[in-house]
């Protein structure tokens, strides 16, 4: 799942929630669903955290020091 996309994981999380809410699962399946749900929600949270950190960082960098680090060097 390393290369999983956020949206895919979110979709899967949603599917898991639907399955769980459907209530028709066997013990094993609901355990698996729970496990998956936990994984997907953790993954999504992690991705969001990363995204938030990145956005924050980018905003800080942009607002802070345009001059110290020329933009072009990153290209």
């Amino acid at each position, binding site marked *: 799942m390393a290369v999983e996309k956020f949206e895919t994981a979110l979709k899967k999380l949603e599917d898991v*929630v639907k399955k769980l809410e459907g209530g028709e699962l066997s*013990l094993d399946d609901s355990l698996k669903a729970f496990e998956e749900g936990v994984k997907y*929600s953790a993954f999504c949270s992690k991705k969001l955290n990363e*995204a938030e950190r990145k956005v924050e960082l980018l905003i800080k960098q942009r607002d802070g020091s345009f001059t110290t680090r020329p933009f072009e060097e990153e290209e």
Partner: protein
Amino acid sequence: MELFKERRVLTVSALTALVRGLLEENFEQVWVEGEISNLACPQSGHCYFTLKDAGAQIRCVMFRNAARSIKFTPKDGMRVLLRGRLTLFEPRGEYQLVADYLEPQGIGGLQLAFIQLKERLAKEGLFSELHKSEIPKLPRKIGIVTSPTGAAIRDILTVLSRRFANVELLIAPVRVQGEGAAIEIASAIDDLNRVGNVDVMIVGRGGGSLEDLWAFNEEVVARAIHRSAVPIISAVGHEIDFTIADFVSDLRAATPSAAAELVVRSKDELTAELEALAHRLDVSQLRRLERARALVTALARAVTDPSRILGHLSQRVDSLDARLVREAGLILDDASERIVTLSARLARQSPALTLERSAERLATLSLRMDHAMIRRLACASESVGLASGTLNAVSPLATLSRGYSIVRKLPERSVVRHNSQVAPGDRLELRFASGSALCTVDASRGESESLTAPPRSV
């Protein structure tokens, strides 16, 4: 006018304002030829005069700035060409010309040449909008084709430094009037194209007479402007001075100052725009993250912990297990009870009792049998004893023991009752009560006394 066919009452002011609007709208810029009269130039710097011909006259005013721009001194009776707009001086209900340009009559040759060239180039398409390129919003380097000593460069530098300090200017110094000026201007445009590395070019000079501006009406300049890959802003003279260069350039500015303004839009404006975009950028991304966060949080909350289900299931298993164990106990108890009951009944049916009764009966029968047998033997014994006793009692041996003997003749052992039965020599046997004797007959005698037995008593 159609507007007033119906009866519509207006105030004087309203009507006047209406008329003024019509005038100003329709006569925004007019060229008028006439003779100056009643000229008055008071301290204020504004000039007031009347323009007339044989049949009519118009009141004219030239305000201070415009008046300052004209290079000659107007005098009464002078025939002039005037450019201006019509307006209405409301307090007096008079219409008047506000002149912004004034030139003396009599330069007709240049004017004709200008018109002719303009028509030709227009026909060729040099003025077409298709050829005009966009002026960069933030030119890094601006080329300026003008006189390094003219008013134009000073005005441009003034505006640029006020609007936007940080810009590179490359001035291609040219003469802007006189013989050869047009060639210089044209090659400077080419030079800047070739080596200037500029983003935009301003080509122009300050205001002047038609003669002064003439270089900008020459074909060589028009062609150079048309050729230029770098966008060009023409900035020749003052607002009223239209040149061929103005028509062919990508943008026309009335003055060099205006050109500078156009080239560099307000830095504040750009900064504001940029900031607005950056803000929108941040906001949209942050909102997006917020939305995603809310969704993830809601979904994560919806991933229900199965502990409750597990609890239910656990309870169910425990309950089933308890029933299982209880049932096993009941089954065993039931089986045990049945066995105990049957075993007890079996024990009551033990044959020991029967055996005891049978043994008793057997003993009785045996005893009865013994008794019967013994009785039988005793009875027989008694019978035998009685008979034997009686036999003894009637035994003939008692007679013999009284002295009688029984004589038998041998060998036939016939009992001898008469002497005649024997002859001498016969062998006789004598039987006594006890024992016997063998004798031989010596003689036989007959008829001796016979014995008669006495009568038997009972």
